[in-house]
């Protein structure tokens, strides 16, 4: 790590001198680009509304073709996902040597109830993979006091005997330089597991695969077999992270419509990225070799987006020679839900703001690219383009398509308003957007095939709403993607850094059923 002194930088305030100034400038960049785009559009709508109108048409057309492009990828991955779920992965391992491989499953928790912890561990327990090759690492926070430790010990007492090992860790509170949250907790837990399990039992680190989960992550029965197969067949397993597909099926029938739409939008996005692996970074629950983690320094304890940041840490550490392997097999998690509707809205907003805060990686990437001359220029440019375009479009495109793009009609002035262009703008843009929105029907169909069977205590009307809910997408794109994304970037711009926010878990469900074809 001495060759990469800036590998674990979290924010500009951790640096000094020119480095600090540069990093600070880079933190401002995503927000400047996004806000500049929107402000520029407003200015253009006043100064030259015709040009603004043409840009709106261009955007609408671009959106249509992008939707088609992504929909094809989604459809393809949907088919692969279904086939993957039907595959007997244990059978696929039959002629491979894997009895020396061990899985560490890290479950960090904060204040979640015992039922949530138990459900997740029970799902591991129900895996078809040999449990004696799986170790559970239940990571508590000291800040929660004895209550958390007791819950962890209770889980260990109930489930510990089935696994290779069951380690309870308690992450110390108030460590200097750390942001309290998942990253610092799982980093501590993984290091402890390395010492207390791998070293103690003499397991080579390159034979250990660490799955970093959330406490509500529930695995499907063949997750570990599938992961093992991908690890063994990867070109360079120690230069790869492994990414499953997050489904949010734990409580999908209990979650409000808004949560369901956003949850599945996230799932679909991850499915699309599985077919575009060159753009894939780790997200939420993912897996990586313990040897790789030990070499590169584990997850950063001083950032919010530790799930994506670990990929960039490893990418920089190995001078660009690092990749993510999509395993096209799901894990299930909780859809965001609170006891009240407004509580859910608030939680959803905060969750998406946290995801939008992944823009903090742009400063990290550019800064480390600057310091690293070993990564090729083409790789740097390609990588940056994907990241910058991704966060810029997330924050601006929905607003341009559904709000700002119509500004010329309102502030374009009398001369513009008498032009044919002003009358035709809504007609032409609507054509493109309406056809693009037809893709929502495709999404709705996929969604209905990915959710678990309707519980008996849920009415048929709820099943119908699972289909109709997709009408909310334009609304969610603006209020739960663009606006929280903009806020996150504004916070980076202004130095009001975001801390980690624990997504509350609220459900009353069991292990998800495996959907059969």
């Amino acid at each position, binding site marked *: 790590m001495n060759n990469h002194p800036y590998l674990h930088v979290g924010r500009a305030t951790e640096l000094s001198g020119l480095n600090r100034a540069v990093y600070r400038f880079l933190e401002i960049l995503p927000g400047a680009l996004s806000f500049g785009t929107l402000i520029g559009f407003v200015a253009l709508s006043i100064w030259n509304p015709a040009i603004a109108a043409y840009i709106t*048409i261009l955007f609408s057309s671009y959106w249509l073709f992008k939707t088609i492009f992504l929909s094809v990828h989604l459809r393809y991955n949907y088919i692969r996902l279904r086939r993957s779920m039907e595959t007997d992965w244990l059978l696929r391992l039959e002629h491979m040597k894997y009895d020396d491989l061990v899985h560490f499953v890290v479950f960090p928790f904060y204040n979640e109830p015992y039922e949530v912890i138990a459900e997740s561990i029970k799902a591991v327990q129900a895996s078809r993979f040999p449990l004696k090759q799986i170790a559970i690492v239940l990571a508590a926070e000291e800040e929660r006091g004895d209550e958390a430790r007791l819950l962890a010990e209770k889980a260990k007492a109930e489930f510990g005997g089935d696994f290779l090992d069951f380690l309870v860790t308690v992450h110390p509170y108030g460590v200097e330089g750390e942001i309290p949250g998942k990253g610092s907790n799982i980093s501590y837990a993984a290091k402890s597991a390395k010492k207390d399990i791998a070293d103690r039992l003499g397991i080579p680190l390159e034979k250990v695969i660490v799955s970093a989960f959330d406490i509500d992550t529930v695995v499907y029965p063949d997750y570990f077999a599938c992961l093992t197969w991908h690890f063994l067949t990867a070109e360079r397993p120690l230069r790869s992270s492994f990414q499953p597909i997050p489904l949010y099926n734990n409580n999908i029938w209990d979650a409000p419509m808004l949560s369901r739409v956003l949850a599945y939008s996230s799932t679909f996005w991850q499915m699309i990225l599985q077919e575009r692996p060159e753009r894939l970074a780790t997200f939420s629950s993912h897996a990586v070799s313990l040897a790789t983690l030990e070499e590169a320094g584990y997850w950063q304890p001083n950032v919010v987006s530790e799930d994506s940041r670990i990929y960039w840490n490893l990418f920089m550490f190995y001078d660009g020679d690092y990749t993510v392997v999509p395993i096209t097999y799901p894990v299930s998690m909780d859809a965001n839900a609170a006891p009240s509707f407004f509580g859910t809205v608030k939680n959803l907003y905060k969750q998406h703001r946290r995801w939008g805060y992944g823009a903090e990686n742009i400063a990290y990437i550019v800064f480390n690219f600057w310091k690293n001359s070993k990564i090729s220029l083409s790789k740097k440019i390609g990588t940056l383009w994907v990241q910058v375009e991704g966060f810029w479009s997330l924050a601006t495109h929905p607003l341009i398509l559904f709000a700002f793009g119509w500004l010329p009609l309102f502030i374009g002035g009398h001369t513009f308003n008498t032009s*044919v262009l002003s*009358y035709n703008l809504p007609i032409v843009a609507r054509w493109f957007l309406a056809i693009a929105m037809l893709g929502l029907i495709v999404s709705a169909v996929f969604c209905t095939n990915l959710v678990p069977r309707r519980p008996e205590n849920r009415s048929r009307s709820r099943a119908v709403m699972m289909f109709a809910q997709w009408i909310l997408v334009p609304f969610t794109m603006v209020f739960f993607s663009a606006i929280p994304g903009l806020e996150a970037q504004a916070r980076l711009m202004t130095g009001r850094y975001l801390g980690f926010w624990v997504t509350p878990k609220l459900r009353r469900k069991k292990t998800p059923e495996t959907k059969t074809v």
Partner: protein
Amino acid sequence: MKPFSPILRRALFLSLVFLFLVITPAAVFYASGYKLSNLSFVETGGLYISVPISGAVVSINGQDEQVTHLLSRSVYIPDLPPGKYAVDVTAEGYYTWHKNLVVEPKVVTDAGALLIPTDFAAVEILVGIKDSAVASSTRVVSRAEFNTLLDAFKKKPLAVLESEVEKPLEVENGKGLFVENGSVIVRWQKNASSTPSSFCFIPSECAQEIVVKKAGKDKAISAHFFARGVVYATERSGLFFAEIDVRQPQLVVPLYQKRGVDFRIVGGSIIIKEGTRLYTVEGL
């Protein structure tokens, strides 16, 4: 099943880029008013007719184009070659509104159809008990209401004073109403760049004033804005309701053809005073 082939992905990407590069400029051209005609691009304009009711038929050059409905009472007709168009708006129970409009390239000519019911009438206002059985050609009000209406006539009618020739009698939506030497004139009071289409003979040629009633032998003595038009009284011919639009033909409808009548607008209604009697125009 293997991941999506990079070759196929690239082929898909390039195909969509190609389609984008073909379709988007076509959409931009169309949106700008260009139309493909006989293998060449023609610049077109459009007409936008706003209609106050649903169920009205909008015709262009004698051909029915659209019927207005509840959700859309305005009619936009795009892709019109530049030229003159005879526009009619017809609806049951209303006089036909007719206008000759000029369409210019890349510009939309807009007009608001002024639909006047055929069954409006002046009814006498009487003092009495409300809801008592009276003829439908009268309206019964209380003594207090009648006196209120009478009081309105104690003020002088709106008429320009010689010293205030520049000051309008009324201003509504940027339009100023003037009565000058027996003519009723509506002048645009705001910036010339925002002149509404009703002041424009053709889209590119606009006036700053519309002569609603030209002074001749029969001079106008007072005027008021009313229901998107102007109501004015003349010395000899009585009361009229006229459209505010410089484009021909201009719609003018007689309301009460008696000499020497006076009128006021009270509470949104036209109140006519003929001698000691009061009338109101209903159904307009």
